[in-house]
């Protein structure tokens, strides 16, 4: 039952309007330019750039990645060109493109987050900030900002106090109850939530008996983690009042639809870009096809329409 009526893919995420709900995830699409020959950024809902910090960071020693079943571990170590080079060398290429540019940012202290937000505020060509709170807090002995509601609140408050840009807070899955963190950063004023970041994982070379990553522990991404991500997005949309961006393991249009159906207003595609650089465009087309097949005209008609059976729902076996 396909028709040729035009369908609407545009979604509103609070202050942010996207022409379609398919964004690319930070750290998996460089600064947009790397894949531009294959994926014109302007076709995307938004581009989220690699996480930047005040000063350039050289990152972790190699090896930095390892493939696992249905996933990959990475410990890039937040390597990035730093704020200044980003503004001088990377942003100018993105600025003229008619695609929202979201800057993913992180710091070692609340103060660094605040400074970064201030420095990015009002820069032409930046349409939003995404706060990575999965980074170790140097003052808290390496515990991540995102695993403690109080620290997460402080980071987001600091960023919000210094910017007028829409603020997305990106949550880590490595917590007991992600809804507590979600509520804390909502109280701190985040405009949007995105989740999940990578799941902490590890692998060992049994011949050398050494870790596969020089950093020992890394972040697991890719289709292996999709069920975890989807569950967390579903938990968060039930308690949150702000729009949610779902990500984690999306490799197909069905995956993207699952996140939208549970209630995400948009999705980000990460690791799948490496496997199939054309995947974001395929998902965008696939969303249109799905709507037509279902006799619908607007992607918003499916967002949050999961039909849940009555009765109690437990977690755990």
């Amino acid at each position, binding site marked *: 039952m396909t028709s040729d009526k035009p369908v609407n893919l545009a979604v509103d995420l609070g202050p942010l309007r996207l022409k379609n709900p398919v964004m690319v995830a930070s750290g998996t699409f*460089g600064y947009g330019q*790397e894949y531009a*020959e294959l994926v014109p950024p302007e076709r995307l809902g938004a581009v989220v750039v690699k996480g930047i910090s005040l000063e350039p960071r050289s*990152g972790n020693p*190699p090896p930095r990645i390892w493939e696992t079943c249905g996933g990959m571990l990475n410990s890039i170590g937040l390597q990035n060109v730093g704020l200044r080079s980003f503004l001088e060398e990377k942003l100018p290429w993105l600025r003229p493109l008619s695609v929202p540019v979201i800057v993913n940012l992180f710091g070692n202290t609340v103060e660094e987050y605040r400074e970064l937000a201030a420095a990015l505020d009002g820069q032409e060509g930046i349409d939003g900030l995404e706060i990575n709170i999965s980074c170790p807090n140097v003052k808290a002995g390496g515990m991540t900002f995102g695993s403690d509601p109080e620290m997460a609140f402080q980071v987001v408050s600091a960023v919000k106090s210094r910017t007028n840009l829409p603020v997305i807070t990106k949550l880590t899955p490595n917590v007991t109850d992600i809804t507590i963190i979600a509520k804390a950063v909502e109280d701190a004023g985040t405009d949007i939530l995105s989740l999940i970041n990578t799941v902490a994982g590890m692998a060992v070379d049994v011949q050398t008996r050494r870790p596969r990553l020089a950093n020992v522990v890394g972040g697991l991404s890719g289709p292996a983690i999709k069920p975890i991500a989807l569950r967390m997005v579903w938990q968060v949309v039930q308690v949150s009042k702000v729009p949610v961006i779902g990500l984690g393991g999306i490799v197909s249009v069905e995956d993207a639809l699952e996140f939208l159906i549970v209630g995400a207003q948009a999705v980000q595609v990460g690791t799948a870009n*490496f*496997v199939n*650089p054309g995947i974001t465009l395929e998902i965008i087309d696939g969303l249109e096809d799905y709507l037509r097949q279902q006799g619908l005209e607007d992607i918003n008609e499916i967002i949050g329409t999961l039909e849940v059976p009555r009765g109690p729902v437990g977690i755990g076996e």
Partner: protein
Amino acid sequence: MLLRNAEILFNDRVSPELYHMGLLCPEIAARIQPGQFLMVRVQEGFDPLLRRPFAVHRIHHNDPPTSFEMLYRVVGRGTRLLADMQAAGSLNLLGPLGRGFQVPDKDGLVLMVAGGIGIAPLPHLAETLVSSGFRGPFVLWFGGKTAADLVCVKHFKDLGFAVRLVTEDGSEGRQGLVTGHLEQWLSQQDELPEVMYSCGPYPMQRLVAEMAARLGIPSQLSMEALMGCGVGACLSCSLRCRPPKDGQDPHYLNVCQDGPVFAGEEIVWE
């Protein structure tokens, strides 16, 4: 950079662990520079998840449309899947990628050094030099564990190369490591090479770079790293390199984008 399905023209076992695969994809073929590589999706589905990097071994310009070859060693899951593929099947490729070899500044002695599967990118380079009018002399030093590793020697000879073989077990050519024999040979040459091209295991590459540095000649080394994207987007494939300015700390370059070919003096060896 293109994303294309190539037709598999052949997939022949050429030694116990090595395979030649012929691929038809004129669009990609037309763009390949010597030393560039491809990111190959070895299977549909998501296990294995990541693409595998492979050099382009040879280009066949003669048969229109242009085809090309990979030479690969079966080492793990992905290459085992490649080895099982049949002619007429198709393979999804991303490429050509990276910064390849530079031709020498001027004619003169050209030295290539290969260790094991490190031979893979050199035939394309050799053909390009010859067909661009370089007249050499050309010398290939090629080392392997055993005689079966020393493939496509005839091809280099046909191009006019002097080929010197070394095996660790002495089953062909001189016995030992290629770098030891090479060093000795170099010390006996009157003419210094214009450039040393090299591809092979990390310790070999390091010794080649050091020899070149001592002799004051340029080296161009094709390096390996674990890769996520192959295009510079993920920062997985780092190689510790000298900073742009003296006095700064070493920084990481991306093998996939800043390489895979690096000048020996760029690299900070560990």
